[in-house]
Every structure is written in structure tokens, then in C-alpha cells.
């Protein structure tokens, strides 16, 4: 009897989950078809969109966001959220450029910037995990603090690097037209995928995101696991900032203003739930690439100023509809179980 009930419940949850995956995939296909159709409609984009150069361009501009998104994915799966990644990215870029300009060797400067990322992740973890404060607002506040600190250090002006070798880190071409930045991004995705799939830490993250109480009674150290997710997220946000600074060979304290919410939305578009327990590295990769492709396609359509702001509006509509679907599916699942 009880075995039957369990099977029935599993089946309902399983059906709801595959329903969710189906709807997401369906939506993604519609989006891609839409992009392709729209881009073929206008003479200006007909020739440019489906070119190797353009796809590499999309990949390059999405790479930084994808590095950030991997950390955010781990935090979201664990049932938290980190909105400080935009501020962290901008701040670590400023730190690395200022240190190098002050004569610190490149590897030391990068290591220090990554350490700052770990430190900020530790503060986020301390307040939102160990003190159980609301992570949205704590990390939002942390983002504001980091942006302000970056502005104070640079007088809110972009700072350019005086060390030309630093630019090679992101821009060095290793495989034909593919720069090192893309390789770093792929490595980060691969490691995240492996950690989430094949390590006990990864399984624990899914468990605490699914139900923290159950995870606790199963013997998982919930606090330490959750704190680790924030540390990873801070580290990867700092890495993203270093790569961005290297790509542009300069840094701006306000570079990350809307980054955090964009990345979270893209991660959710990919299929990671804001409620925790569901998601994955590849899903987030797809979400980020989809939004990157969409933005790219819309940017190509900037024929006059009226249309110039249409991409943002459409991006908002798409984000809202996918988040709406995410909540709606969860509501149906609640009602089913």
C-alpha cells in the first residue's frame, strides 16, 4: 500500500518534471525559430546572422555571463540566490587592473582578485546561511557595497590597464578564431557539470535545495554545503570579472549594474528553478546561449531608433513568460501532489 503510494507520487512528480522540461524545450524551439525567421526577414541581417564570425561573437560575449552563471546555478540549486555577482564582477576587474598598474605581477594580481571573490562569498554565506538572513536582500546590498567601493577606487571612471600582456589572457587565439576566454568558459562549465553530477557535494546541493529539513536528517551538513555554494559563486564571479577586464584590457566599476538579474533570469530560462533542487550546468549554458543569440539577433535589427529599444522589451517579455511558466508548473505540481 505504502509502496504503491510512493510509486504514485513519484510518477506524478516525474510527469510534472518531464512536463516542465517539455514546455521549456518547446519554448526554446519557438524562440530559436522566431530568431531565425526574424533575422531572415531583413536584408541587413540575412547575410550576417548565420556566419561563423557572428556565432563566435555571440560565444565571446556570452562567455563571461556563462562563467558567472555556473556559480549562480550552484547557489540556485542549493535553494539560495546571489545577486552580488554583478557588483563582484565589476569590483574584481577594477581590483586586478589597479593592482597591475601599481606594479603587482599579473598572476599575483589575479590571485588577489579571486581571493576578494572568495572573501565576499564568505561574507554572503556568513550572513545569509549561518545567520539565516534573506539572501536576496543581503546579496543585493553586497552588490551595492561592491559597486560603491569600485566607484570610490576609480572615481567612477573606466580604468585601462598599462600591462599589454594582460589582454592576452582572454584574447589569445588558440584554436583558429576561438579565443582562450571561450576555452576557460568551457572548462568552467565542464568542471561545474562534473561537480554537480559526480561528487557527493553536488548531490548534497540538490538534496538541500529540494528539502533542507530532509537533507539535514539524512546527515548532510546543510550549512557547510550551502556556504560552499556561495564561496564558489563569489570565486566564479571574480573570475568572470578578471576575464572581462582582460578581454577589454580595462575595467569599469559600473559594468555589472544589471548583470546579476540578467544572469539569474537566463539561468531560470535554462530550466533551473528559483525554488531550488532543480537544474544543471548544461541547462544554464543553454539558457545563456539562447538569450545571447536573441540579444544578438535583435541588435542586428537596430535599423532605426524606434526599434532600438525593442530587444529590451522583448527580452523582458520572454523572461517574464518563462518565469511565469516556471511558477505555473510548480503550482500545478503542488496541486498534483
Amino acid at each position, binding site marked *: 500500500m505504502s509502496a504503491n503510494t510512493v510509486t504514485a507520487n513519484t510518477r506524478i512528480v516525474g510527469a510534472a518534471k518531464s512536463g516542465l522540461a517539455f514546455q521549456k524545450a518547446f519554448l526554446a524551439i519557438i524562440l530559436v525559430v522566431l530568431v531565425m525567421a526574424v533575422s531572415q526577414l531583413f536584408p541587413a541581417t540575412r547575410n550576417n546572422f548565420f556566419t561563423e564570425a557572428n556565432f563566435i561573437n555571440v560565444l565571446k560575449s556570452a562567455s563571461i555571463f556563462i562563467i558567472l552563471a555556473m556559480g549562480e546555478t550552484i547557489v540556485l540549486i542549493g535553494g539560495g540566490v546571489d545577486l552580488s555577482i554583478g557588483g563582484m564582477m565589476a569590483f574584481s576587474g577594477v581590483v586586478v587592473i589597479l593592482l597591475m598598474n601599481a606594479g603587482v605581477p599579473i598572476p599575483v594580481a589575479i590571485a588577489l582578485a579571486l581571493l576578494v571573490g572568495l572573501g565576499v562569498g564568505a561574507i554572503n554565506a556568513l550572513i545569509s546561511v549561518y545567520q539565516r538572513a*534573506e539572501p*536576496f536582500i543581503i546579496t543585493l546590498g553586497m552588490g551595492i557595497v561592491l559597486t560603491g*567601493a569600485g566607484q570610490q577606487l576609480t572615481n567612477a571612471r573606466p580604468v585601462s590597464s598599462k600591462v599589454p600582456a594582460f589582454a592576452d589572457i582572454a584574447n589569445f587565439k588558440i584554436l583558429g578564431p576561438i579565443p582562450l576566454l571561450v576555452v576557460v568558459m568551457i572548462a568552467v562549465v565542464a568542471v561545474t557539470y562534473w561537480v554537480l553530477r559526480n561528487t557527493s557535494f553536488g548531490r548534497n546541493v540538490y538534496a538541500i535545495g529540494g528539502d533542507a529539513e530532509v537533507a539535514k536528517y539524512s546527515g548532510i551538513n546543510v550549512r557547510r554545503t550551502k556556504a560552499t555554494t556561495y564561496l564558489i559563486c563569489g570565486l566564479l564571479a571574480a573570475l568572470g570579472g578578471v576575464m572581462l577586464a582582460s578581454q577589454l584590457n580595462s575595467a569599469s566599476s559600473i559594468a555589472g549594474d544589471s548583470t546579476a538579474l540578467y544572469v539569474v533570469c537566463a539561468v531560470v530560462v535554462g530550466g533551473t528553478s528559483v525554488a531550488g533542487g532543480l537544474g544543471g550546468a548544461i541547462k544554464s549554458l543553454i539558457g545563456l546561449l539562447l538569450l545571447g543569440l536573441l540579444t544578438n539577433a535583435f541588435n542586428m535589427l537596430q535599423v532605426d531608433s524606434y526599434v532600438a*529599444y525593442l530587444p529590451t522589451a522583448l527580452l523582458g517579455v520572454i523572461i517574464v513568460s518563462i*518565469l*511565469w511558466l516556471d511558477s*505555473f508548473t510548480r503550482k500545478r505540481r503542488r496541486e498534483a501532489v
Partner: protein
Amino acid sequence: MSAVTQPLEARRSVSQTVGNFLRDNPIYVAIVGLVVVTSIVEPKFLTYSNFDNIIRSAGTLIFAALGMTFVIMAGFLDLSIGGIISLVAVVTVTLIDRVGQGPAILIGLTVGIVCGLINSGLILSSGALTQAESLFITFGMSLVYGAVALMYVQGVTQFLTYSESDISIFNAINSGTIGFLSVFTAMAVIAFVILFIIERRTYMGRAVVLTGGNKIAARLAGVPISKSIVMIYAISGLLSAIGAVVLVSRVTLADPTMGTPYMTQAILAVVVGGTALAGGRGSVLWTVVGTFLLVLLNNCLNLLGVSSYVQFMIWGIILITVIWLDTVKQARVRG
């Protein structure tokens, strides 16, 4: 004997009450301390013109924060107010020469309410019950409203360059007086009194607080959750729209991105006042206090010559500290 002990006990309980208050509201204490320091260091602080300046700079923020209070009390968030303020500002200013200033303002306020209704419609239809869901949905809508504002004026800032009689309402809001009160202060007081009555004296006000306390329990107890969600977002939209009109009057222009900073500032004002971010506990009265504390803080730091970037950092630190202390306090209350 008892005559000797009673005053002692009374004295102790007063000091305990003061001690508890200091412990529970360190932000109030810190900002009042800053005000004292500023008034000693910088005599300009205690002048009438500075006082006037403080009241005025509460402008848009107080309306946006009053609207946000109900949303947060019900356990939700509204990140779309930045987009709503931008949209209402450009709609109102561009409509003045087509339909006249009165109708333009009315249309602007209607746009605000409609935006709020759209938000609540999305949240209700998706069955979103958590703060996180409302946060992301309203953030997405903020992008939409902001982009519509940009498209509507094609990214161009609109100036209030009309003849004096065409914009008399805006001038009145900016500099007019009713008796000894400025028009702006009167508007803020009226908005506050209406919201305070809704909060304390109406069924819907209690429904909002109960929704924030525990949504499932509230629903089972027959509290009209859907109605309160529609109401809080409509109120938030309307008050953001009023804030937009005040902002336009003050700076005499409408920029399609001018609303963006108010999103975090309004949340900050609400939580600094003492309303619990988790919902279920709070008051528009506290929000008024919170708004003035923030404006005072800003004014003091300006007079003390602190750079605007450091001020920005301080806002972030205050946001973190307030939420942190509130969490610690809640944990103590629960035991």
C-alpha cells in the same frame, strides 16, 4: 519599604525599555547620532533652508516607499516601480500639450495602476506564492516598462518647456503652499493618512498583513489572498505614478530611465523603518520614519563632504545590517 523599591523598579524598567529599544533599533540610534554630530560640526545643518531641503528630497522616495510597504507586508516584492516611474513620467510630460495638464496627470496615474494590475495578474495567474517568484517576475516587467518608456520617446529626454499656465499643477507641486504647508508635504500627508487608515481600520488592510504572515494558513482561514495581491500591486503602481509626477515637477524633465534608482531605495526605506522583509509585520508609519532617516543620512553625509560613492556603499551596508539584525531579532523572539 515598598515606597523605596517601587521607584527603583520603575527606574530599572525604564532603563530596560531604553536598552531594549537601543538593541532592537541600532540604525535609528546610529542615524540620530550622525544628526547630532553633523549639527555640531556643520552649523548649516540646523537652518530652515536645509530643513526645507530635507523635506523636498524625500519627494518621490516617500511615495514609492509607502506603496512598497503594503507589498512587503504581504510577503512580496515589487521591483517594477523603477520602470513604472520612468514610463509614467514620459507619458505624462508628452501628453501635456495634447490633452492638457490635468488629463495628462490622470492618464499617467492610470498607467501606473494598470502596470500594477498587470503585475498582480501575472503573479496570480502563475500561482506565485514566494517572494523570489514575485521578485523575478516584477524585475522582468521592469525591463518591459522601461523599454516601453524608451520606445515611446525614442530614448529622448522630454523637457517641461511649456508656458507657465500649462504646467501650473506641476509648479504648484514643486513650490506651492497651502497655508503653512507646502503642497508636496500636504500630498504626502494625505497619502500617508489614507494608507494608514486602510492598514489599521479596514478588512483589506488586515488581509494584507495576514497574507504576509502565512499564505497557506491565511488561505485556509478564508483570507482573500488574491484580492490583497491585486490591491497591493495596484497601490504600489498608483503611488509610484504619484512619485513620478512629483519627480517631474521637481526636475522639470522626464527621462525614460529616471526611475531606476528608486527600486532599491524604496525597499531600503521600508526595511530601515522596521517592516519585516519576510512579511506579516510592518506599518506605513514606520516607512515614513525610515524614509526620513535615509534622507537625513544623505543630507548629513553631503554636509560632512562624504563622496557620493562612499554614500552608495553606506546604503548597501545599512541594507545588509538592517536585514541581518532583523533576522537575529526574529530568531530571539522565536526562542
